[in-house]
Each structure stands twice: as structure tokens, then as C-alpha cells.
């Protein structure tokens, strides 16, 4: 994989994430008890042996910079290549509209990089993939572009997605708007393999035409000009676009098979190191079907929930069907179907519940 580089594209569509993206871009939204969304695709790239990964950002990326640091936690603090964050060159709306022209604006970076193949991926995809087989497929097929797709599970809940029609050899014949819930549908994901030279040409075209265009749109429009092949994303996947998907896919982590595969196979998911001690369960605590990170102290009861690092749950408090980031929950409080962002304080005896299927989101630093 020495000849492959990675590009993670963090676009600004975080508005549907409500309070969670008030202060941060979507790629740095906390997920899964200790991670941020970007950790999954970044760890996949690093574990696949990519040694040159660029993260293209638009705005609200200070938490992302802080999270990624020198790339050390992903073993990407390399002297040659490594992890690099690409903020926008200037405050220019035209550049920001499409990713292609943004890549083109940073063409000096691509020129400097020695790798000839690029994996371009969005920053909000939850997966754990080794890209080696896909790159081999891409080369064997002599494809111009290889796109990834995921096979929708039955009854996974609906949302219109782009679906692929494939020829027997895997070449993409058509892209249609489909329903994710139609089982077996091949859902197009924002992960692409293509030659660096092609990426630059597409970027140049977009920039020359003044088009604020996305790579995905270009691929769909060029299905007949380019040889586009499709490769199935192995293992668990989720795309986090809005708060209800965020909640649903978080809850899926509480299935044993999701936990065992997503976090361990084919590689470990890395994240920024915090130095939290193990979680302490006090006398009288009661927990089941939950995912609990280090650094919590729990005296109450927790059910079907995810607790991030450093949550305090006082005696008698009850937490159910909720996602709690580093917060303090007072005695006898009752939380059901809520998402608490960091540094929330819930006073003793307080009861907060969301609607069925629609969690209540409490923004960072609030006192309830």
C-alpha cells in the first residue's frame, strides 16, 4: 500500500446534527463512547498501511485539529508523509461549495506526494476496513474509479439513498435514487479509489468551469466517459448524516456482534489518548446492555446506553436508552432517550426524556 494515499473530506453538512455540530464539524462529533466519527475511516486507512493521509476541512475544525494532533495515535506522525490537515486556503465560498475545486486548490500537496493512487472518503462513515483487497480489485479491473457500496440489510429503516446497478464484472451501469430499506440494495458510499492524476484533472475541470462540484456527482455524471467499478464494503457500516441516524447507529453498537466486529476486525480503531482510570462501579450499581468507557464512576443504574469517558452517575439515578458524554448526573435523576453533549450537569431528582425514536439533545455545558 506504499503507492496509495488517503484523503478524508470533511464537508460542512453538519447542520442536521443539531447541538452536536454547534461548535464542531461533523467529523469530530463524538461517537461510540470514546471515539469521534473520523476515527473509523482514519484508522481503516492507517491500518491498511497508508502512510500519507490528508484531512480536508472547511470550518469549525479546531476540535478536529486538537483531536488529530500530530497523528501519533494513528501511527501517522511520520517524517515522510504522515497526517496533514488542510484548512481552506482562503475564505472563498466558491471554493468551498464543491470538494473537487478544493482538492484542486491544494494541488501542490498532491504534486508533492509520491503515491499515485488516492482513496477519497467522507469523514462521517462508520466502518472498519482493510483497503488492500479493494485496491487490488481496482488495479486488476484497470478501473478509472472504484466506488464502494454497502448492501442494505432488511428492515434497517428507510432513507433515500443512491443505489447502484452493476454488470456481472462489477462495472457500474447506473445510479438510481433508492430506499435503503429495500434489502439487497447496493447503496453508494462516499469512498472512492482513483488515480491521483484523474483526481487532479477532474478538479481542474471543475475549477475551470467554476463549478462547485462534488466528486460523487462527477462520478455519476461521467459513468459513460469513465470506467467506474464498484466494490462491496465488508463488515459493519453506517453513514451518520443526521441526529436520528446518529442515535440509531449508536444503539446498534449495543449488539454483541457489532461490538466484536466493528472495534476489533480487521484492525483496532484508534483515537486520541486520554488518561482515564478504569470505570468504578460502586455498591448498588446496576448496569446492563451498555457500552461504558473508562473514567466513569457509577452508583446508579444504566440500561441500553452508551457512557463516554468521565461520566458521573450518582446513587439512585436511572439512565435508559441514552447517550451520555462526559457529564455529571445527580442522585435520583432519570434520563430516558436523551443525548447529553459534554459537561452537562443534571441536578438531583431531575427527569428528562425524549420522544420515542427521537432523542432529546442537550448541548454542551448546559445545566439541567
Amino acid at each position, binding site marked *: 500500500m506504499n503507492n496509495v494515499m488517503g484523503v478524508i473530506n470533511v464537508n460542512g453538512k453538519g447542520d442536521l446534527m443539531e447541538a452536536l455540530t454547534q461548535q464542531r464539524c461533523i467529523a469530530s462529533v463524538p461517537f*461510540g*463512547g*470514546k471515539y469521534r466519527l473520523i476515527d473509523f475511516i482514519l484508522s481503516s486507512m492507517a491500518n491498511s498501511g497508508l502512510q500519507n493521509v490528508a484531512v480536508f476541512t472547511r470550518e469549525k475544525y479546531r476540535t478536529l485539529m486538537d483531536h488529530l494532533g500530530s497523528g501519533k*495515535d494513528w501511527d501517522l506522525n511520520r517524517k515522510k508523509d504522515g497526517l496533514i490537515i488542510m484548512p481552506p486556503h482562503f475564505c472563498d465560498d466558491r471554493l468551498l461549495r464543491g470538494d473537487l475545486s478544493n482538492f484542486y486548490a491544494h494541488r501542490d500537496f498532491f504534486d508533492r506526494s509520491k503515491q499515485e493512487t488516492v482513496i477519497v472518503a467522507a469523514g462521517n462513515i462508520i466502518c472498519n476496513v482493510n483497503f488492500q483487497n479493494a485496491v487490488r480489485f481496482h488495479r486488476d479491473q484497470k478501473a478509472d474509479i472504484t466506488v464502494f457500496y454497502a448492501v442494505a440489510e432488511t428492515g434497517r429503516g428507510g432513507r433515500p439513498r443512491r443505489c447502484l446497478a452493476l454488470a456481472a464484472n462489477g462495472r457500474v451501469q447506473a445510479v438510481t435514487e433508492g430506499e435503503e430499506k429495500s434489502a439487497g440494495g447496493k447503496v453508494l458510499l462516499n469512498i472512492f479509489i482513483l488515480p491521483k492524476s484523474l483526481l487532479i484533472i477532474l478538479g481542474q475541470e471543475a475549477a475551470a468551469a467554476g463549478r462547485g462540484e462534488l466528486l460523487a456527482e462527477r462520478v455519476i455524471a461521467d459513468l459513460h466517459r469513465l470506467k467506474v467499478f464498484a466494490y462491496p464494503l465488508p463488515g459493519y457500516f453506517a453513514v451518520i448524516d443526521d441526529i436520528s441516524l446518529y442515535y440509531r447507529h449508536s444503539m446498534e453498537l*449495543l449488539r*454483541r456482534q457489532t*461490538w*466484536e466486529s466493528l*472495534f*476489533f476486525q480487521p484492525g*483496532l*480503531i*484508534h*483515537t486520541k*489518548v*486520554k*488518561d482515564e*482510570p*478504569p*470505570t*468504578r*462501579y*460502586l*455498591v*448498588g*450499581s*446496576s*448496569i*446492563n*446492555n*451498555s*457500552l*461504558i*468507557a*473508562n*473514567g466513569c*464512576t457509577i*452508583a446508579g443504574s444504566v440500561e441500553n446506553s*452508551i*457512557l463516554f469517558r468521565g461520566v458521573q452517575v450518582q446513587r439512585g439515578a436511572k439512565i435508559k436508552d441514552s447517550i451520555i458524554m462526559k457529564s455529571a448526573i445527580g442522585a435520583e435523576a432519570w434520563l430516558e432517550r436523551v443525548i447529553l453533549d459534554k459537561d452537562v450537569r443534571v441536578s438531583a431528582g431531575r427527569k428528562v426524556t425524549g420522544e420515542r425514536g427521537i432523542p432529546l439533545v442537550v448541548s454542551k455545558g448546559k445545566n439541567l
Partner: protein
Amino acid sequence: MAIVHKECVAMLLAGGKGSRLGDLTRELAKPAVSFGGKYRIIDFTLSNCTNSGIYPVGVLTQYQPLILNTHIGIGAPWDLDRKDGGVSILPPFVRTRGGKWYRGTADAIYQNLFFIEQHNPRYVLVLSGDHIYKMDYSLLIRYHEEQEADVTIAVVPVPWEEASRFGVMEVAEDKRIVDFTEKPEQPRSNLASMGVYLFNWDLLKQFLEMDQRDPVSSNDFGKNVIPLMLERGCRMFAYPFHGYWKDVGTVASLWEANMELLAEDSKLNIYDHDWRIYTVNPSQPPHYLAPSACVEHSLVSEGCFVEGTVRRCVISTGVHVGAGSVLEDSVIMPYVHLGKNVRIKRAIIDEHTIIKDGCRIFSKDGGDGAEIILVEEHVVIGKNSEISRQGG
């Protein structure tokens, strides 16, 4: 929060075999033994150094050092990866006239004179990597300066019946040390040395050289150098320490120290954000407690998967507890895999061991005084085995 004392070099003795820990230290040195769900014993001393602003730190190794070397690296987890020398591993080495192993604690320091000299410090702080405690060494240094001492030894009161296991001091009203005896049969004081010594470097150097010239010396601080200094009239003071301090030198005390973390008001607070205990963090996900799990009064670290029942236990990183298993009053070291319907009571299960379905591990008398059973690392205990021992 501490002042940066670059004028002080810390020398951390981490060469101990810890033979009273039995099988726990067959493949690694005592300071590398796992503790508290995710730490190694030496993490406490290294974290004390960084939290006190003390560096450089020389770590003297000798016995099975690979795990320790890999663990410490250049000290990044403890923020000791400094440009001007944060932490240096100091193994014994060969010089022009041949190689010498470290004979005693004082000899280990003596053989690294040139390391200390290159930093040209005012003080040398000698530490041991074998103890669990949180201590701000910068306060010790301030005390030492206030007393205008030549040597300051940190002391802690221990139960009288245990005093004979330690170096014991008699002190005057003003805390000046009057007498020091290493492991006395009839202790005349219960003030034990914590193995934390602060020396004025120019003085220590003279005494180390004197000690080397003595052919019958065993080149040990407690047995030789400290008594010699006392005899020669050095100003030696005791620094009383009132926090939690534990010499985890036996299987029972290692177990006990782990259990002491479980209390809500544990004397050893590892949750203090202003005095963090640092260690190497593995990339493990949050632990998962299944619908059938029951966890109470326990510590559980990341990467664990629990379907069974856990009471009064320390469950370290990456442990798997199968359905129907019941663990009580035990310490499960990292990456242990317990199958279904396993019962464990009052035991330490060491790293990477696999215990298959239906095994039972417990002391015969079962009571609170029962001996702690130790199952060694990297072994596989077959289905339905029973490991038990007559209680002490």
C-alpha cells in the same frame, strides 16, 4: 502544582526481581507487574515525577527489562519525552575493563555517576519503582531546603508488627534522624523508610565513593550508605508522609492494594484530574456489559466483555467473562479469557491466561482470611478444572 526542578535528577531503581511475588515476576521485573486494571506498578512513581515537575529521570534496570523498556520508551505517556533529557533507561553495561552487574542499590547509582554528572544537579532523588503511592516530590525538596538537610528520607508510620520488614528510623523532636536500622528484629520505632531519599549530590558522591572502597559493603543504601552517613554526622531528616503508601511486595499485598481501589472513599484516588496516573493506553473500545451481566462494587477497564457476574473485583483491560461465570474478590489481569460458568474467589489471574468453561478457583476454607490463589500468566486451564488451596 509543582515547580520545575531541573536542579534535581531522579534515579528510579527498577531492577528488582520481587521474588516474593512468585510466578508474577518470572518473566518481568516487579515494577512491570500489572495493577489497578490498566497500570503497571512503576506508573505511580513515574507519574509522581512528572506531576512534581521532576526530570530527568534515570531508570535503573537489570532483571527482565524488555517489558519495562517497551513500556517506558522515551517516556511519552508520562510527558517525559523532553528534548533536554526526560527519561533514560540505564541498564548495567560493559566498560573498558569489563562488565559489572549492579550489586546493590548504592552500586547501581555509583555505576551511573557519569549520567548524573552530565546534568550536574544540586540534588539526587532516589526512588523505588516498587511502591504504590501519590506524592509531590517538590514539597519534599522544599522541606529539605527549609531544614538545610544533607539527606531527607520520606517516612510513613506502619503497624508495629510489620515494622521489622522495613528500614526503621528514630527521630528527634525536630525530625532529625537519630538512628536508622534496616529490617530490625526488635524495631524501636514504627517510622518506615518509603525508599524515597533526597541527597545533596556532592555529598552523596563522596559517600558512594567511600562505600565502593569498603570491600565488605553490600553497596546498599539502607544497609550501608545511610548508616555510614549517620555515623559521620550528616544532617539527616525524616519527611513524614501521610497519604496512601503500599509496598506491594507479596501476592497478598498486591491483591489487597487492588481491593483498596474499590471503595467509594478509597485512600488512593486515581480519579484526581490534577494528579493523573499515566500509562501506555492500548486502543481498546469501551467495555460492553451484556444484558445478562451483573457488575457491582468493581473496577472494569476498556476492551472487556462481560456476560457474567462480577463482585468486588478488578477487571483489567481486554478481559472476557463468559455467561454464568461468577467472580468475587479477585484481580483479573489484562487479556484474561474466562469461559462460561467459571467460579473464581479470592484469586489473582495473571495476564493472557485462558480459563475454560466450568473451572473453579478458590481457597478451601473460603473465609476472609483465606490465602490468595495466583494463576500464572499465559497458561490455559482446561475445562472443569479445580484449583484450590487449603486456607492459611
